[in-house]
């Protein structure tokens, strides 16, 4: 188990800057998920932690020791790759024991450790097979087994589930969570899939364009996004951003004009001063409800019945497209006119620069969650 600290870490390839000064601290035993769209630099950050990419500037500290330039093997890490990266010329057993062999571990010890790991991952019957002869799920488990065998302080996962089909992915997600529970190691996990991120993470790190946008527990991020990017990235279907028709400061916060003539008044945590131009109202689809006298009028274009819930896509009075997610099987058809409403507490207001004007600064950084 280990803490990992990243201080102002920068990474560039020639003229291209991939990471522009990341700061992050991961606690012992934490499951940290790096999430963001492709190209945001999350994999590069992971590879910098692993030691696969030299760090351009800044520091990497593991367990209080500066590891910025240390060899990967000295960092006490193991990594599971997207393509599993199993050695095709070695058997499953050799793959799992390879790291130990390189570390000159005695043969008997390697054998015992491989057997132990294989048992844990239910791979015992296929130790003599070559990776070619395994299914996708089995390969995935071998890749994890290989990481386990060396008893690393930190596990790194680089989109490990993206090559599996949907049902297997769900299954493996659960297994990973269990594994984390039983091992208790620090794990750093990269994905672009927000469902994986939400379900697995103790803490989530949302990244975009080489920057860390926000760090926090999944639900904190969902409920209290720092900016428009995080708000839009998390949640399915994504949050609606409604361009307001006008804004004026009030004693409590701001009064916003809605398409179709309605207004809404909400409190702000940040001063509005001078930022009234280009404000957007953020409403999650699931926070909307049907109300004939509601503040938003919707002309329904498409209705998706999902059984447990209903997705309604439609146009506001000024032609903006929004989505509403309604519980149950609502009897709505394309062409209907609906009134929608929402509760003020769940609203977000974003200024032209994307900052959430209703963002509440969380309790000072610390143990967001008790260590298990």
């Amino acid at each position: 188990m280990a803490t990992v600290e990243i201080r102002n870490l920068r990474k560039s390839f020639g003229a291209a800057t991939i990471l522009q000064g990341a700061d992050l601290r991961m606690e012992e035993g934490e499951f940290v998920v790096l999430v963001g769209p492709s190209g945001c630099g999350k994999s590069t950050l992971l590879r910098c932690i692993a030691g696969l990419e030299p760090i351009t500037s800044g520091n990497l500290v593991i367990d209080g020791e500066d590891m910025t330039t240390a060899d990967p093997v000295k960092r006490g890490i193991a990594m599971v790759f997207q393509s599993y990266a199993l050695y095709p010329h070695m058997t499953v057993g050799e793959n799992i024991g390879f790291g130990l062999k390189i570390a000159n571990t005695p043969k008997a010890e390697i054998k015992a450790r491989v057997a132990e790991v294989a048992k844990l991952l239910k791979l015992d019957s296929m130790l003599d097979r070559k990776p070619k002869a395994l299914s996708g799920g089995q390969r995935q488990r071998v890749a994890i087994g290989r990481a386990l065998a060396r008893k690393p302080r930190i596990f790194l996962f680089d989109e490990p589930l993206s090559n599996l089909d949907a049902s297997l992915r769900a299954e493996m997600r659960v297994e990973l969570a269990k594994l984390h529970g039983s091992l208790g190691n620090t794990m750093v996990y990269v994905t672009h899939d927000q469902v994986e991120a939400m379900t697995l993470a103790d803490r989530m790190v949302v990244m975009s364009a080489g920057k860390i946008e926000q760090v926090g527990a999944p639900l904190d991020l969902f409920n209290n996004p720092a900016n428009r990017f995080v708000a839009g990235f998390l949640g399915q279907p994504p949050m609606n951003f409604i361009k307001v028709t006008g804004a004026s400061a009030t004693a409590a916060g701001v009064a916003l004009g809605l398409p179709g003539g309605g207004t809404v008044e909400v409190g702000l945590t940040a001063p509005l001063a001078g930022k009234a131009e280009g404000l957007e109202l953020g409403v999650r689809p699931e926070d909307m409800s049907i109300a004939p006298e509601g503040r938003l009028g919707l002309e329904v274009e498409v209705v998706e019945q999902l059984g447990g819930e209903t997705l309604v896509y439609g146009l506001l009075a000024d032609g903006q497209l929004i989505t509403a997610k309604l519980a149950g099987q609502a009897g709505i058809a394309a062409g209907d006119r609906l009134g929608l409403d929402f509760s003020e507490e769940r609203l977000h207001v974003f200024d032209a620069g994307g900052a959430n004007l209703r963002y509440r600064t969380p309790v000072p950084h610390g143990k967001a969650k008790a260590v298990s």
Partner: protein
Amino acid sequence: MSDFISARGIKRGLSYLVVGGWALFSVFFVVWVVLASLKKNRELFGSPLSIPTSPQWGNFVKTWVNNRFGDYFLNSLLVTSVSVVAILIVAVPAAYVLSRGRFRGREALSSFFAFGMGVPFPLLFVPLFVMMASMRLADTLTGLTIVYVALSIPFTIYVLEGFFSSLPSELESAAVIDGCSDVQVFRHVMLPLAMPGVATVAILNFVGLWNEYQLSLVLINSPENRTLSLGIYSLITSMQYSGGDWASLFAGVTIVMVPTLILFVILSEKMISGITMGGVK
């Protein structure tokens, strides 16, 4: 519908005729050379398409013993195998570093090696001989081997670079994470994975050097150091003044041809898939 089928059938048949005919011609060629080696000279010129009436096995005896093809065979085997092993020892690591390393001037160096493929070998004959002689390696199999290795480097590196660069980089990362040093990554992971490519260049170089005669003609004088292809060459030049014993020539050609053919029959699939994997990437 039946029209359609028969038109297709004709087309299909035509494909087999063209491709099969061409392939059969290769077989015919080998069979003809072997048959020619069993003929009498008179038969050979008078009726090249006939089957030898009384096989002249003596042609082989004459070639193997009198023309010393037995000795040449051993020389060829020695020079070719040692050269191939040395080429691999030298070129495989270089190709690996050139295709997977990250250092300044890598591309330039890689092009610099490729550049050697454009050098016409006859250009090098005299300087090479003088160099060999000053190192006391002229007319030795060692000298010939060194030259073979050096001159095979550009092509070998070119093909192998293609191989190494086609290997997934995640395996390299995985090995690093598993604690491999850079040399261990090469030895335990990348080299075993590049084995098909290594086998291919080994075979290609073997075949090429086995049949090489221009360089050896310049560098080797003594009959006891001659290789098989020089043996063939001396049979051909002996035609002037001594007379053409064509049947023995074909016996010699058969002796030269058989090892590469056997190698080819055993390894053709590996060789062909290898050529393409590296050569065209």
